[in-house]
């Protein structure tokens, strides 16, 4: 077999291992799905009536209008929250003994991380389907056609891929599993500082500027455009650029950390 074939085989082996972990211990997946669902219900039923009335141009007002507005934001926070799992699973591996075993075997470089990242991506997509199901059950309606749904799924997958690599790198950088479960927390905060929950126009000047330029806003707006109408191209370009940049930088960082890991551990 060629080395490329080994890379694919080894990554598939590692992916199977990570999927087995997820299936055997579903509590992490359920927790990752639980966070966005709680936010969805909280924002729609507690704040939604009031927030929906002040949306202005975004609909007839009230809770129904807010559901339509907030679901793209919820899908984004789902991606951010699901990415937390990657840092935890990567750090669990890195602080355990098995990683040393992998590193003394002729396994293709990056297979361990690739297995984690693809496993997390599949996990995130499953959680997204669950969250979307709850959204539809509480009254979210989309006018999107099949092509627009596919484009939205593609946007979510690309952004998830970027955040998962970032989370994997944070998991590599963490000295313990506890640290790894804390450092990526800012990812779940950023959607609140974007256009996900309220229009950026309602924010004070400094925050508004931050919000308009941070990556979560163009991704949210792209989804919103695809699922509930609105401009798409103007948001899609920065959204894709952000995702590609985060994915590439995080990938390089994670691989670098993986390759030089434990070089400084004393006997």
């Amino acid at each position, binding site marked *: *077999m060629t080395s490329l074939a080994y890379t694919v085989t080894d990554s598939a082996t590692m992916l199977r*291992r990570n999927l087995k*972990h997820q299936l055997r211990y579903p509590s992490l997946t359920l927790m990752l799905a639980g966070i966005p669902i709680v936010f969805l219900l909280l924002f729609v039923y507690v704040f939604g009536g009031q927030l929906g009335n002040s949306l202005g141009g975004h609909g007839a007002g009230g809770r129904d209008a807010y559901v339509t507005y907030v679901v793209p934001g919820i899908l984004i926070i789902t991606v951010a929250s699901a990415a937390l799992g990657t840092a935890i699973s990567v750090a669990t591996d890195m602080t*355990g*003994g*098995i990683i040393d*075993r992998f590193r*003394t075997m*002729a396994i293709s470089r990056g297979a361990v991380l690739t297995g984690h990242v693809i496993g997390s991506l599949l996990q995130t997509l499953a959680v997204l389907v669950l969250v979307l199901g709850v959204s539809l059950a509480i009254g979210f309606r989309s006018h999107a056609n099949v092509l627009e749904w596919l484009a939205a799924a593609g946007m979510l997958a690309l952004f998830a891929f970027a955040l998962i690599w970032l989370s994997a790198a944070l998991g590599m950088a963490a000295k313990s599993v506890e640290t790894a479960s804390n450092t990526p927390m800012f990812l779940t905060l950023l959607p609140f500082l974007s256009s996900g929950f309220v229009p950026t126009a309602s924010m004070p000047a400094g925050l508004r500027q931050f919000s308009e330029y941070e990556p979560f806003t163009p991704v949210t707006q792209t989804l919103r455009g695809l699922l509930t109408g609105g401009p798409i191209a103007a948001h899609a370009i920065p959204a894709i650029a952000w995702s590609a940049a985060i994915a590439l930088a995080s990938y390089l960082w994670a691989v670098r950390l993986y390759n030089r890991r434990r070089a400084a551990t*004393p006997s």
Partner: protein
Amino acid sequence: MTINPARPAISAQAVRKSFGEHIVLDGVDLTVAEGTIFSLLGPNGAGKTTMVRILSTLIAADGGDIQVGGHDVVAEPDAVRALIGVTGQFSAVDNYLTGEENLRLMADLRHLGRAAGRRRVAELLERFDLTNAARKPLSTYSGGMRRRLDLAMTLVGNPSVIFLDEPTTGLDPRSRRTMWQIIRELATDGVTILLTTQYLDEADELADQVAVLDHGRIVAEGTPAELKRRIPGGHIQLQFADVGDLRAAARMIAAAAPDDDQLILQVPGDGSVGSLRRVLNELDDARIDVAHLSIHSPDLDDVFFAVTGRSAIEPAMPLEEEVLQP
């Protein structure tokens, strides 16, 4: 050295490694002949684990020339990794998988193929007495079972060189004997084994060659028998009820050194039954009562003491010292 390694499985010259200011390995040379068991003996912090981590490509040395199976660990790490198996000090198993799944994972990563992989896994489960627990989660495994699974995982790819870092630390005596048996069988099959240990009896029991590592340097090397020959022989230790008996005995037995405080007399000797009988007969003829007697054969702790001036390694069990109560 008695073994002249025509084709050394492991050869390391002038290996150095420090972590910051702390020098862990200070020019270590070692050569391990193919198919032999080599033991790196030393107290905690001597640098044993660091040496294993360097030899098994986990970390890079600061300097030195290291070859495993004829491949340079720095230039061709993957060629080395394809030959070796490593069982570290801390268990390297996947706790979320069953024993069988752990072994399958190794078979897949060694690219054994489906059928051959299954066969190898079944064979190892059988050999390591894990067949009944194969499909149980690892949380139900005992320490000895985990260690056996750990070693079985190392063996999936039929490695020709195996590194065992303190393979029996923390095991109960019975599991320890089982592990020794497995290690001996591996060597019989022609596998080269480098094991680290802080137990003298373990090195004595298993190793063809022993190197004593202390503060990052090899302070003694040879077969266990050669090392023991380098130090003063064993002795018989006699304890008496009072100083009178002690003095009387000391006058009678040449080359004995009395200790008035503890009423102890140490009689150099090889610890054989003949020499013991001679001493006891002499004392009996003179009607001197011995309160307490023990025989001490030279062991690797004496070697360690002789070469470093410290007694830093503890025997796991007092196998060498039999205490007789008259």
